[in-house]
Every structure is written in structure tokens, then in C-alpha cells.
């Protein structure tokens, strides 16, 4: 009884000990926060990686890929059996995209061009949710939509057919103004075009860093008076209306700047009515993210759904040569994994196969570079992978067969390692706090020496005296750990608000969205982890009080009574 009473009284009267427990509290709070954020990140990453990658990828190292996709898919189907949920064939090839920007120059980006089957690709991996157009999220189509991209995102400029038509009109307008002879044909749309032009200019001025040249090139446009002054200097660039590359294209020929385009079958290609083959561009390929003068994060789009881009890549022949064509951006891909968003571009599988020459006209079979599988939830990925490896032995087939974990193994392992190391470090911090408790407790035992003597003189056994201090340490540990957990959970709950507050305080962004594709800091609080942390902290507090408690128990009653 006296043990509890005295531990309680010591707890209430010795605030210095509570100060020593603050370090435990802070340690626990940090552990809670770090674990929540780390597992939030890890979970987010897992989900995204898994979503973007399919469960199992069978990839061919050959230039021309697997010669017969249908045969391979049938064979894989029979090997995997009932576990198979979906399967799709993919061609991917390193490529280069040229995005024309208004002053006649172009932005070039290296990309990873993926030819996908629009019907099955979205079944295999999480592709559709990362698209901007709601209809494309339901069913991907490589046909340009009239509008309505990225609903709910105010900063996203209007795109689609409407944007395409407006742009073409503006371009034609510009040409008419610069070459009056060629402008005769389209007077009917003049009024509408003027209004559109104005809108386009505003849009461009807001969002397009390279748009300055556009108003420069159209000084006579009604309502554009404010752009009058700087005219002339760059006109030479803008007037340049020939795009030499056009002549090399084999199937569809077009000039985004208004040259008369001719289809391969002889029909006239009118950008107002026609589109090239569709391409879904990774959003970071088509845009750049930086800060304006106010420090706000802004996205600038080099091109939008409705614009045309030129893509160049090697063909699959024995002597690879570069092939290229114009594509119309029909949507954008935003997985929020910067690595993917800045490299992936998707085009229809058949088009890519044809352009690369992966088509055998005699037998009517198509080659693919990889086959991706989705298997039943809960199926053993490694077992299926091993079975596939057995059936496609490396001696015969130059294939790599990997699960999504294999593909992202190093990254996942790195995150795991980071979490482990952080946990160890933070527990060391709590251990340091434990030494603080040890020191404080020794002080308290010294201070209480006479009381310990009194208790012993009154017949308290050594074990009882010891348990006073163990109880005390336990109570301090519990108080500290619970307070720490509460603090940590509050921090985690309001972590985004806190990050915002720190931003306003320091003027620096905690999680820079130009680096991380996170709008919010992801957190996951795992109850088991919290319990572990609390138990660990309490244990450390108790362990730290063992030595002082032993010392108290060993005190000689007479010596203790003499102590002053």
C-alpha cells in the first residue's frame, strides 16, 4: 500500500522527474510521427508502384520483341491457369518527343513510348485512374474528346477539340495577317476567331511561359493593342512556315502551323476536323512546374490535349533507323510518381507495331516487347513467376520474367531500410532519455535516503522499497509515453496544417510539390506500431529506474537514518 501511495506522492511532488520524462514523451512523439509518415509514404509508394506496374511482366530482350504475341499469350494463359485475371501485350521503345511551341521552336524530351491495347491494358494495371478525362478513365480512347479534361482542376487550361480548333484558327489568323494572299479563304470564321484569339492569348499569357512570341507575331489582331510595341524583332522566326521534317513522314503528313497537309490516302488533312493518331503523354513531359513571383506553384503546359506532337523512335529492323510521326495529344497521364509522369507516353499498340515493323504480313502475326499479367488477388506471385520461368527457360527465350516487386525491389528495400534505421535511431533517443531518468532517479534516491531509512526502520522489506521506485519509474514511463503518443497523434492528424504553418513561418515549403508529387503528406497510423512504441518507452523508463531502485533497496537502515 505504502508503495503505491509513496510512488503517487513522489509523482505529484517531484516535477523534476516529470521534466526528465518529457524527453521520453518527445521521443515517443517523434517515433509516432516518423512511423506514421514513413508508412504513409511506403504505402502510397507501394500502391502507386503496384498500380503502375502490372503484377508480372514477361519482357523480351530482343530488338523485335517476341515474334508472336498471340501464341505467347495463349501459352501464358495455359501456364498460369485460373489465377490469371487479365493479360495484355505491350510494345515499348525509347523515343524522343518534339513538342512545338508557339514561336516555331520546339521542346524535346526523351520518353518511354509504350504501345498499349486500349481494351485490355487498363485491366492489367492501374492506368485509367491516372488519366485526366473522366470518359477516358472509364474506357481509354485514343480519339480526342471535345473538352472537359481534368474537371475540378481550375488551373488546367481548356483542352480538347475546342482548344484544337481555336489554336488552328489563331495560327491561320496569324498567317493571314503575315501573308495576306494566303488568308483569303477563311473570312467566315473571322469574328469567332477574333474572340477565340483573345481568349487564347489570355490563356497563353497566364499559363504558357513560351507564349510571349505569339502576341508578338499578331500585332494587328483586334483587342491585342497592348502587345503592339515589341513587334518585329522576332517576326523572322515566326514567319517561318515550312517545317522540313514533314516531308519525311510516311503515313500522315501535316504541318501544325497551317501548311496544307495531305493524308497518305490522298485525303486532305484538316486539323480542324482531323486528328493524328492519339498519344497519352505523361503530364510532366508536357509541362513544367515552377514558382511564380508570389511563390505559388504553377504548372506551365507546353502542349495540351488537342495539340500535335512529333515522336521519333528506332524501328525494329536489323539495322534500326529512326522513324517518326505526328501524334495528337488526347489525354495526359498523371500517376504522381514523377519518374513515370516524366517519361511515359502511350500510343495505340497496333500503330507502334506497324511503325516499328513488328508486323509479319505473310503470317499476319504481330510481335510485342512484353506481356503483362494481372493475377487473382492473393495469388502467390513468386510461384507463378517461377512457373513461367520454368516454361520459358533463359536458354531458349531471351526473356526476363519479373514480378512488380522484383522490378521495384531496390526502391522498396531502400524505404524499408530507411524506416528501420530511423526507428533504431529514435529508440536510441528514447534510450538517452532513459539515462536522463536514471540520473534523475539517482538524485531522488539520494534525496530520499532518510525516508528510505525510516521505511526500513518501520519494517518495510527491501523488495518493497525497491518497488516504490520501480512503480515510480513505471508511472513516469506510462505518463510520458501516453502524453507522447497523444502529442504524436495530434501532430500526425494535423500534419498538413502544421506543414502549412511551418511554410508561412519559414517561407520554405516542407514538401515541395515541384519535387514530390504529393499534394498532402500521406500518413498511416498503425495501432500495433503505436503499442510497440508505448511499451518500449515504458520498458525503458522501468529499466532506467532499476539501478536507482536497487540502490535504495540496498541502503543500510541506520546509515540511511543518519543521512542528512
Amino acid at each position, binding site marked *: *500500500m*505504502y508503495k503505491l*501511495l509513496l510512488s503517487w506522492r513522489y509523482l505529484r511532488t517531484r516535477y523534476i522527474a516529470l521534466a526528465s520524462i518529457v524527453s521520453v514523451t518527445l521521443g515517443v512523439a517523434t517515433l509516432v510521427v516518423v512511423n506514421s509518415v514513413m508508412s504513409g509514404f511506403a504505402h502510397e509508394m507501394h500502391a502507386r508502384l503496384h498500380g503502375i506496374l502490372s503484377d508480372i511482366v514477361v519482357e523480351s530482350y530482343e530488338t523485335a520483341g517476341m515474334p508472336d504475341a498471340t501464341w505467347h499469350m495463349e501459352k501464358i494463359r495455359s501456364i498460369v491457369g485460373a489465377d490469371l485475371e487479365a493479360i495484355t501485350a505491350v510494345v515499348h521503345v525509347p523515343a524522343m518527343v518534339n513538342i512545338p511551341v508557339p514561336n516555331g521552336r520546339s521542346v524535346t524530351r526523351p520518353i518511354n513510348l509504350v504501345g498499349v491495347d486500349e481494351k485490355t491494358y487498363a485491366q492489367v494495371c492501374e492506368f485509367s485512374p491516372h488519366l485526366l478525362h473522366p470518359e477516358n478513365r472509364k474506357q481509354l480512347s485514343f480519339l480526342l474528346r471535345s473538352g472537359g479534361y481534368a474537371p475540378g482542376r481550375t488551373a488546367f487550361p481548356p483542352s480538347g477539340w475546342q482548344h484544337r480548333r481555336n489554336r488552328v484558327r489563331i495560327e491561320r489568323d496569324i498567317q493571314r495577317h503575315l501573308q495576306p494572299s494566303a488568308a483569303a479563304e477563311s473570312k467566315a470564321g473571322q469574328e469567332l476567331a477574333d474572340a477565340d484569339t483573345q481568349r487564347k492569348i489570355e490563356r497563353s499569357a497566364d499559363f504558357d511561359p513560351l507564349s510571349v512570341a505569339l502576341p508578338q507575331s499578331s500585332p494587328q489582331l483586334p483587342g491585342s493593342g497592348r502587345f503592339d510595341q515589341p513587334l518585329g524583332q522576332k517576326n523572322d522566326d515566326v514567319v517561318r512556315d515550312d517545317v522540313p521534317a514533314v516531308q519525311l513522314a510516311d503515313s500522315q503528313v501535316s504541318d501544325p502551323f497551317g501548311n496544307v497537309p495531305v493524308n497518305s490516302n490522298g485525303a486532305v488533312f484538316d486539323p480542324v476536323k482531323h486528328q493524328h493518331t492519339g498519344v497519352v503523354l505523361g503530364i510532366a513531359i508536357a509541362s513544367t512546374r515552377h514558382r511564380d513571383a508570389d511563390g505559388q506553384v504553377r504548372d506551365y503546359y507546353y502542349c495540351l490535349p488537342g495539340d500535335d506532337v512529333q515522336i521519333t523512335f528506332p524501328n525494329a529492323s536489323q539495322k534500326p533507323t529512326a522513324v517518326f510521326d505526328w501524334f495528337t495529344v488526347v489525354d495526359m497521364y498523371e500517376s504522381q510518381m514523377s519518374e513515370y509522369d516524366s517519361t511515359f507516353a502511350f500510343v495505340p499498340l497496333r500503330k507502334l507495331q506497324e511503325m516499328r515493323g513488328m508486323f509479319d504480313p505473310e503470317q499476319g502475326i504481330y510481335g510485342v516487347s512484353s506481356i503483362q499479367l494481372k493475377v487473382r488477388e492473393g495469388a502467390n506471385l513468386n510461384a507463378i513467376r517461377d512457373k513461367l520461368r520454368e516454361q520459358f527457360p533463359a536458354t531458349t527465350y531471351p526473356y526476363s520474367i519479373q514480378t512488380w516487386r522484383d522490378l521495384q525491389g531496390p526502391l522498396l528495400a531502400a524505404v524499408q531500410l530507411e524506416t528501420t534505421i530511423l526507428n533504431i535511431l529514435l529508440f536510441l533517443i528514447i534510450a538517452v532519455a532513459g539515462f536522463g531518468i536514471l540520473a534523475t532517479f539517482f538524485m531522488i534516491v539520494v534525496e530520499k535516503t532518510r*525516508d528510505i531509512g525510516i521505511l*526500513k*526502520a*518501520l*519494517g*518495510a522489506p527491501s523488495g518493497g522499497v525497491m518497488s516504490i521506485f520501480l512503480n515510480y519509474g513505471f508511472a513516469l514511463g506510462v505518463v510520458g509515453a501516453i502524453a507522447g503518443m497523444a502529442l504524436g497523434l495530434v501532430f500526425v492528424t494535423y500534419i498538413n496544417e502544421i506543414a502549412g504553418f511551418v511554410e508561412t513561418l519559414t517561407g520554405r515549403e516542407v514538401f515541395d510539390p515541384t519535387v514530390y508529387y504529393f499534394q498532402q503528406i500521406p500518413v498511416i497510423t498503425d495501432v500495433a506500431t503505436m503499442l510497440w512504441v508505448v511499451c518500449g518507452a515504458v520498458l525503458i523508463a522501468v529499466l532506467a529506474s532499476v539501478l536507482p531502485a536497487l540502490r535504495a533497496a540496498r541502503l543500510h537502515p*541506520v546509515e540511511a537514518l543518519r543521512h542528512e
Partner: protein
Amino acid sequence: MSSMPVGYEPLIASARQSSSQLTAFTGQTDEQQMPARPYLLAAQNVTKSYQKGRLQIPVLKGVNFGVEPGEFVSIIGQSGSGKSTLLHLLGMLDVPDEGEICLGLERMDNVSAKRRDRFRNEQVGMIFQFYHLLPELTTRENVLAPLMISQGVFSYLKHRRRNRERADQLLEVVGLSHRLTHRPHELSGGEMQRTAVARALITRPQMLLADEPTGNLDSENSAEILQILKDLNRDEQLTIVMVTHDRDIAKEAGRTVCLREGLVDEVGHGNL
């Protein structure tokens, strides 16, 4: 304080060996005869020395001392003569270098720590020169401390009401009913010493060992404390060993023993 309130009787244990069975031997040390008539508590040929660096300071050099049941003995001696040391040995707070400490016929200096703890808790009440109250506890809780030690949480909570009544009763005996919830630092020296007396009596011990119970008090407080002890001895036949350096106070006891140069030097019966 001179008159004991009615109902005081049950406060002190009646489970004492009847004094007819125990006859004290008459003073002079005669080791062959000793075990025949055991004291209630006795020290036989006890030596105790303290180590001070390489130097050994002998404090007790073969003390023979016994107290009969119901006796009121005072121990006097110069400062540093070893009175407190002897009392600590008798109270099982320390063990002698040589010799024996006996409770009745039971030798106590070499039994388990548990047995000695129980002896201190239940059979003896100690009053210290410097009060030695626990500063975190109130007056009442200090008085209850020995019961809290002997009883577990559950039995203490079960008997809480009875324990508290008894504590309040004892505090009334020592005249502290108005200071129940004070902390020791809010009490005067006399009040603290009376609290210590109440605490020593809470477990209904057989004997009381008091180390200079009046040492730091003014004459009026001293007289009151002394009166309480005398009343307890007279009305309850409580065995009391009282250490003092004041011959006048020592005279109040039934018998006086003098410690000199580590030996029990002089024995008087009431008259020095």
C-alpha cells in the same frame, strides 16, 4: 495529557506474556545462569565497532543489557557513548559484531531479514531523536505508515476505516486531533514527536524503543511526552526503553542504566 482517556486500554496489545513466567535475573552478569529467566529483550556480550578508514572505532565492548516485560528502563550516557547504537541493535536495525540479541528466548541477530523486518514492524515501536517522519505524508498517513507496510493494498483498503479510526484515536491520545492533515513541515517539533509516538503505537507493539524522545523539545513538551510514556507504561504495562542524556528525565523511569566506555557501567533502580 496526564489523564488517559477512557477506552485507551484496547489500544495496546494484551497478548503479552504474563510477567509471572518471566523473572528477571538480578543485574550482575552471570552467563551460566542467564538463559534461565529470559528478558523480554536482551543484549548479551554485544560488541560493535565502526570502521573509519583503517581505524576501527569500538563503540560497544561487550554490553549486557536486558529489559523485563512491563519495565520502563532509561539508558543514559555521554554523547558518543553508543546509546543510539545499542538502541538500534535492540530494534534490529543493525547487527552486532559479536554477541547476541534475544527476543525472549529467540535469538534475533542472525535470523532472516524478513523475520527482522516483521519484528520491527509489529513487535516494536520506535521513536527517533529526529522524529523521522515521511515528508510526503500527512500526520495521519505517517501514523498509518506501519500498517500500510504490513498490509497489502487490498487488506489495507478493506480495513481502512478501522485503521483510520485507530490512528485518529492515537492522535487524540497524543493531543493532535486538530493536525490530522498537516504535513510534517507544517508541524512544530513537539507535534512531530507526538506524531512519532502515535506511529510507534499503531501496531500495538510489545515494547517501545525511544531515542531521546525529548531531546529537541522545550521542558513543557518534554514533560508531556514523558507523561505519555509513563502513562503507557503504568496503564498498559508497555515495556519502554528510553535513551536520554538528561539525568532528570532518566529518573522518571523505573530503572536507569549508564553506558560508559562501551560497557554498561552503572545500574540504578530509580535513584541515581
